[in-house]
């Protein structure tokens, strides 16, 4: 900014703050730490914080702040120049497979499940899965709130090997990596990520979109999802608790994410990638980000002879905050039923869900994400937030700000008319064919 500036950070974020300022080029930045948390505290409690000591340095907090703005700079604080960061040698060993396995675990390069050791031979085999040269830069990805790292086709291949991928899976991993989307998010929320695969490649890779589609029943589903996490961990330096990962509770879905191949043949509707502007014969991966997915079995009206699935979806979404989009994952039996009742397109179902899944303004404003994200947007004049914040507390508004916050996919083995609902926002669709 060009004038003396000092940040106040709660002590739970000490390492994150110290590393962040260092990685952004101001390693000596004078930070004052406060007790944690500052949210949900009374004015008297916060006054005690301010009049007390920095819990990290032990010095009086306000005296420290005044000194941060007035004490002359040291030589280190005036330093300029470029610092190159090493990530270690190109290869490890030679050693036994067992020792190397443990070495990769001990140095934070795995998800702590057994990996395939990425030997030069294994990686060369993986590289046969694409026509792209090994040294081509695939993209960049940021792990946490830091400047992004870059990576090549070969670096992605190393991680694909570690995850147990076959070479024919590799274009999918490259497509995901090219999006720059990590599956490990630094937020204190414990985010989950999903990838929906569409196109003929689903069958070429023997993906499971039938019975148990979301379970551990196909190598391609399992290994490709795991590769996304290793890519995020190693190529973007994500997933380091206290540094690039701050999810308070973590998310079990981070092990291999939600890999969903749409059951296109059994669906009465157009597949997701066609909705996003691709041709049916194209192979595409579409990414989602949010908090997770829950089954909707036992919902209202399930056992009647005229189940209204759209109402059941809406019921399920009412337990989510609306911060993320809504994703319906319907078994083909449900999709067929809905089509028979007049929902001959996904769009008609989405329209109904948008209009009928609602909340009061009072409930909406009381949510933490509304304060942190939507209220500032309202102040900027962005819609619908500006209108929503001007409405009375008892007014009823949609659960989501935009109709296209809702998506629908169809998968499952038709053993029963079940569905799942996700608190997941669509982010991007990427061509897989580009990476073959």
């Amino acid at each position, binding site marked *: 900014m060009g004038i003396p500036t000092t940040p106040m950070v709660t002590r739970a974020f000490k390492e994150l703050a110290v590393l962040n300022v*260092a990685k952004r080029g101001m390693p000596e*930045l004078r930070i004052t730490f406060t007790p944690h948390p500052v949210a949900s505290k009374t004015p008297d409690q916060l006054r005690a914080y301010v009049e007390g000591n920095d819990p990290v340095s032990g010095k009086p907090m306000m005296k420290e702040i005044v000194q941060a703005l007035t004490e002359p700079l040291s030589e280190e604080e005036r330093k300029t120049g470029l610092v190159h960061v090493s990530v*270690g*040698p190109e290869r490890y060993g030679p050693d036994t497979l067992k020792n190397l396995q443990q070495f990769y675990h001990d140095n934070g390069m795995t998800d702590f499940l057994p990996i395939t050791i990425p030997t030069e031979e294994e990686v060369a085999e993986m590289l046969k899965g694409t026509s792209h040269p090994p040294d081509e830069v695939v993209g960049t990805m940021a792990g946490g709130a830091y400047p992004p790292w870059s*990576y090549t086709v070969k670096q992605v291949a190393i991680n694909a090997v570690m995850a147990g991928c076959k070479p024919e899976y590799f274009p999918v991993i490259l497509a995901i990596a090219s999006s720059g989307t990590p599956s490990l998010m630094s937020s204190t929320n414990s985010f989950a990520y999903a990838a929906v695969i569409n196109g003929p490649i689903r069958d070429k890779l023997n993906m499971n979109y039938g019975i148990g589609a979301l379970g551990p029943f196909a190598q391609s589903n399992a290994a490709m999802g795991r590769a996304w996490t290793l890519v995020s961990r190693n190529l973007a330096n994500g997933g380091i608790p206290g540094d690039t990962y701050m999810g308070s509770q973590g998310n079990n879905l981070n092990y291999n994410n939600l890999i969903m191949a749409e059951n296109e043949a059994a669906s009465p509707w157009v597949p997701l990638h066609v909705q996003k502007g691709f041709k049916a014969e194209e192979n595409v991966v579409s990414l989602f980000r949010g908090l997770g997915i829950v089954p909707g079995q036992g919902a209202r009206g399930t056992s009647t002879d005229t189940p209204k699935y759209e109402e059941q979806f809406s019921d399920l979404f009412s337990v989510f905050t609306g911060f993320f989009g809504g994703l319906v994952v319907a078994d083909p039996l449900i999709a067929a039923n809905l089509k028979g009742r007049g929902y001959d397109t996904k769009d008609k179902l989405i329209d109904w869900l948008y209009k009928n899944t609602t909340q009061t303004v009072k409930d909406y404003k009381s949510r933490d994400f509304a304060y942190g994200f939507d209220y500032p947007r309202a102040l900027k004049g962005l819609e619908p937030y500006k209108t929503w914040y001007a409405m009375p507390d008892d007014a009823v508004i949609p659960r989501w700000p935009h109709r296209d916050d809702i998506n629908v996919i169809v998968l499952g083995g038709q053993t029963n008319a079940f569905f799942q609902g996700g608190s997941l926002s669509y982010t991007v669709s990427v061509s897989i064919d580009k990476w073959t």
Partner: protein
Amino acid sequence: MNRRTLLSLLGSSPALLAGLPVEAQPGKTTPAKPSTSQPLVEGLNPKGTPPPIQLIPMAPRLDRLDGKTVWLVDTGFEGGGMLLEQVRLWFNRNMPTVNVVFRRKAGPYMEDDPALWKEIKEKGDAAIMAVGH
């Protein structure tokens, strides 16, 4: 983590900043030596390429705050604004000659607000930013 120790690594061994503890821990840069007759292999490093770090000198400090204008900037995390209100009151009680201006940064907390930075630089002498949480 000792901050001084960490920051001293910047010039000599910045691997810790890259999230790779092996470089920062002598003796752990390679796996343990094999003790069996099992086949030996080499494994490739799966890490991506971090960008270099451009060191940015800090702005010159003020000689004192008396008579100066200090901006308090709320980044939008919950509680940050209330914490800064107590900071404002502290200045009123203890350093009343300091002119304190409060402002919530525009947009969600992760969005930049260059217009505000420009305004602070034009109208202010120093700034305190509170992230809350």
